[in-house]
């Protein structure tokens, strides 16, 4: 469903030039659960942003469901964010003035579907937070906030979920609960690309891609157990 071909990303110019990604190619099929690993500064987050059309590339192609999305304009990218792809961030990135329920409703608001409270409640129930629906993010624990963020990602029923260090701010036990949730979503048929620097967390994925200095240095496929 998603293919990136020979992409490079360069920040800055001249002596300040930083090559974040160098000729990276990757394929994510339907139902895949890919972990992108690597030390900080290796270009993992940049890769994730590019996959989701949040960042521009310097060269190469990003193809989603057979269509190039790297050269799409802002409006077309908005359509992709409203349906096919959703994000989960390390910092949760919830809107502090809105309750858990309202944060989940936000993507629907932007789509123009403003009377879907029940749908949002059902999804909150799925992530085990139906009793926290009226709480503001500041009244929720880190794990709970991330569940709200996951619920928000799910509300538009995306086929691909991009997660950037989703458990980075949590203790091990909470992190495992979140990862279990991701595994479950993956079993339902959603593709997941998750960035992490933690091998144990990466172990939850079916496939691990290791990035270093902007290049893919290793690919491990758990499902088949083979190196590619």
């Amino acid at each position, binding site marked *: 469903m998603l293919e990136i071909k020979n992409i490079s990303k360069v920040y800055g110019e001249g002596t300040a030039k930083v090559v974040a990604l160098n000729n990276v190619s990757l394929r994510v099929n339907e139902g895949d659960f890919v972990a992108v690993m690597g030390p900080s500064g290796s270009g993992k987050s*940049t890769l994730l*942003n590019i996959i989701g059309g*949040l*960042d521009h590339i310097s060269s190469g192609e990003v193809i989603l469901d057979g269509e190039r999305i790297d050269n799409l304009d*802002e*409006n077309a990218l*908005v359509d992709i*964010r*409203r349906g096919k792809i*959703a*994000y989960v*961030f390390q*910092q949760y*990135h*919830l*809107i*502090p*003035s*809105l309750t858990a329920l*309202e944060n989940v*409703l*936000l*993507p*629907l*608001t*932007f*789509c123009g579907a*403003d009377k879907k*409270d029940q749908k949002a409640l059902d999804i909150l129930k799925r992530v085990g937070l139906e009793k926290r629906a009226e709480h503001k993010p500041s009244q929720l624990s880190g794990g709970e906030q991330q569940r709200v963020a996951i619920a*928000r990602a799910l509300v*538009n029923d995306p086929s691909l979920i991009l997660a950037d260090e989703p458990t980075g701010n949590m203790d091990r036990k909470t992190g495992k609960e979140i990862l279990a949730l991701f595994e479950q979503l993956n079993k339902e048929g959603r593709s997941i690309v998750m960035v992490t620097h933690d091998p144990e967390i990466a172990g939850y994925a079916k496939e691990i891609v290791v990035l270093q200095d902007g290049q893919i240095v290793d690919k491990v496929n758990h499902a088949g157990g083979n190196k590619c």
Partner: protein
Amino acid sequence: MKLYQVVVKDIMRRKKRVLYASLGVVIGITTIIAVLTIALAGQTNIYGQLEKYGANLIVMPAISDIDIGLGGLSLGTLAVGDNYIFEDKLSEIRQISDGKIREALGIEDEGDIATIAPKLYMNTKVNGTFVIVVGVDPQEERQLKTWWKVSQGKYLEAQDEALVGAIAAELLRFNVGDKITLNGGEVTITGILEETGSNEDYQVFVPLETAQQAFDKEGLVSSIDIRALCNACPTSEIASAINENMPGVRAVAVKQIAETEMGMLEKVSKLLLALAAITLAVGCFGVVNTMTTSVHERIKDIGIMKAVGASRNQVIKIFFYEAIIVGVAGGLLGYVAGTLLAYIIGPLIFGGVAVTYVPQYFLPSLALATLIAVIASVYPAFRASKIKVADSFRSL
């Protein structure tokens, strides 16, 4: 959940910020509303005084007084000699006045329309004290001086009766039933007026013919008051028609006198309004500033919203909704503050004039404030819409 609800919830969390943003608008609107409210109070005051005068037009002998002036500045008038209008000109004046009114209102009524009240002013000694005796047409005068109330006795009816102003009655110890001598003629006081607060309080009113006979002024009057009794009546036209067609008299529309005074008021108001507009423009930049700061502060929120599906237009809308709230808040506060300011400053400027709040200014002040806030938000909103999601998260 609608987009505006998202904005409202966010603003509730940043109330102080929003109030601060609206401050620029508040100051501008306050100044404008204060100036307008005070100017209107001044205007109402002038009109009120005119209304009290009763007449819309005054016809005087053409050379009864000399204007004392310096360039365009009037220093008042100097009365010289005895000048009168012949009473027989009344019918001609009536013809012109009623004709003009019929023309203006498109009516063909044959009866009298305007109230035309001739007067003969005489200064004379009564019981050893000088008083002004005014000969009037009792019926016409009654229609002109709608505010007259007789406190004792009755209104003028017969030729040998007199009506006395409240203060004149008090000073000269007149009572109803007293007989007084006017330059030979004798009249009986049949009524005393309630105090009106004008110089009528010092005058003695008798029927016109009685005054004419007593002072040997048969067929003469000092001035003629005309009351057109309608707001749309062409008083200036009547005045110029009388001036053109009747030599020897000068007609002045009271409105013209008022306009001179109004003109001054208007000039001052315009100057103040110009200053207020500058204040508003400066305030507008203040809003641009706070809004731009607001964009910087909320880069992350904007990034999140874009990441979960907000389009550029929706981001712009969010800022415009915020601008509308800032504008409405600013307009509301500005209206209240401006009105309060007018209540404080107005009486100082116009010497105790009663300032009243003007409800008609409320909606326009909201609209103007909103317009300014929206204009001030165009650039910040545009900048916010250009924020790239990846950049917004990187900047943290």
